Structures are given as structure tokens and as C-alpha cells.
């Protein structure tokens, strides 16, 4: 499960049914230690920061 994402990695939101932001890409800007397993990305499309569980992202 762990992909060892690091700050600066380019990631993509994994596909899920009826999930409108599937396929969005962004840059990892923060890897949370508390709570562990959460990744903050800066979305390319909006420029806003969003929080995802690591399992919902795939490294590009």
C-alpha cells in the first residue's frame, strides 16, 4: 500500500466509480505524520490544496 510519496512527487487521483475528480493530478506538498498516511497535494486544475489518504493516490 505504501508508495513512499515525497514532497514534489507528481500524483494522480485513482479512478473510482462516480468520483468526479478521478484522474486529477497534482504535486505533493506535504506528507502528514499526524494523522499518518495523509497526503496534501496542490491540484493542478484549481491550485488549491487538498488532503487525500495515500491509498487514493498513485505516483506518476
Amino acid at each position: 500500500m505504501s508508495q513512499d510519496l515525497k514532497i514534489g512527487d507528481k500524483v494522480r487521483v485513482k479512478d473510482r466509480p462516480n468520483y468526479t475528480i478521478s484522474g486529477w493530478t497534482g504535486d505533493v506538498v506535504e506528507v502528514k505524520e499526524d494523522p499518518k498516511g495523509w497526503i496534501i497535494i496542490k491540484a493542478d486544475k484549481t491550485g488549491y490544496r487538498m488532503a487525500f489518504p495515500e491509498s487514493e493516490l498513485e505516483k506518476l
Partner: protein
Amino acid sequence: MEMTSGFDLCPFYSPSLLDEDEGKAINEIIRQSQQPIKDDDSWRADSEGIERNVFFGSYETLLNWSRHWSLFPAAFGLACCAWEMMSAAALRFDMARFGMEIMRASPRQADLLIVSGTLTWKMAPAVRMIWEQMAEPKWAIAMGSCAISGGPFADSYSVVPGINRILPIDVYVPGCPPRPESLYYGILKLREKIRYDSIKRVRDVSRS
């Protein structure tokens, strides 16, 4: 027309068979429960495991740690951002992961106010009243462009151009409306703020 009974339609679930199955299940649990389950004593501190059961830290650290894992948001929505907030609390995104799944219906039981949506001047006294009814320590998140700055209605005669004119805000979450993931980012930022907060801090509530 031939009459049929329910038993004919469900021949495998006649009352006698159900009773028989139920009896088997009861007999099975009686058979398994002849001895009491052994109490778990593994939590007890002994000389070998004492470091596993005792930790040292400051009162402030413990307090902030417990606070940042148990936020109680007020169930309060103003406009379209409220739908995203509800979505964030619902099944797919599941705010329970941060220990804040219970949206309190009373401000007296809440310590987080998520101002989600456009605030009108007409609604402003109610929002301030809710904020003042919440007990300290309390925090506020401004969710969405309208709450942050009035958004597209900033110049309107009826819209508050920024919720920070009504109450002090801890985290601003931009977007129109912000997706639940963006709200989560704001929540994580707020948790960080709470985690490293000082109990000596007194919120400045003075108004001109």
C-alpha cells in the same frame, strides 16, 4: 384458482425448521459458554512492561493531543458549501477518521464552527450568537469564497464581506465551493494548530 399458503412458497423455512435451527444455535452457544472468558490482564504494568504503560509529557501536550483528536463541529450550514461539508461528514469521505463525526446540534456541545457559505447581514446576529454560546476552547473555519471574503457577493448590500468581521477565524478554506478534500486540508491544518497551541493563550475577542 388454487390457494397456496406461505409455507408452500417457502418450504425450507417452515416454522418447525426455524425453531429447530434456533434450538441448534442456542445449544451451540450453551456448549461454547460453559467456562467464563478469561479476563485480559495484559494492561497491567509489571516490571517488564512498565515502559509500555507509562509515558511522560507535559499537561499541555496531553490536553492538546486529546483536543485535536476530538473536535465536535456544530451542525450549521449556510449555503451551498454546506452540502460539501455534509458530504465530507458522510460515508465516502468519513470525517469520523479524525474523531469528529458527531455534528452537535447545540452550540453548547460544539467546539468547532464551520462557517460554510454566504453569510448575510440578516443572518450575522444569529451566527455571532451561536459563536458566543460555544464554550472555550473553540475554533472556527471559514469555508468557501463567500465566507472568506463575500465571494461574488462581496459588494452586495446584504452580504457580509468576510466572516472574520463577525468572529475570529482560525483556518480559511478557499474554493467555490471547496471539495471535501479541501475541507479536510483545512481540518488537518486546524488540528495542527490545536496540537501546537498553548494553554496560556487567551483569544482576543475585543471588538471596536
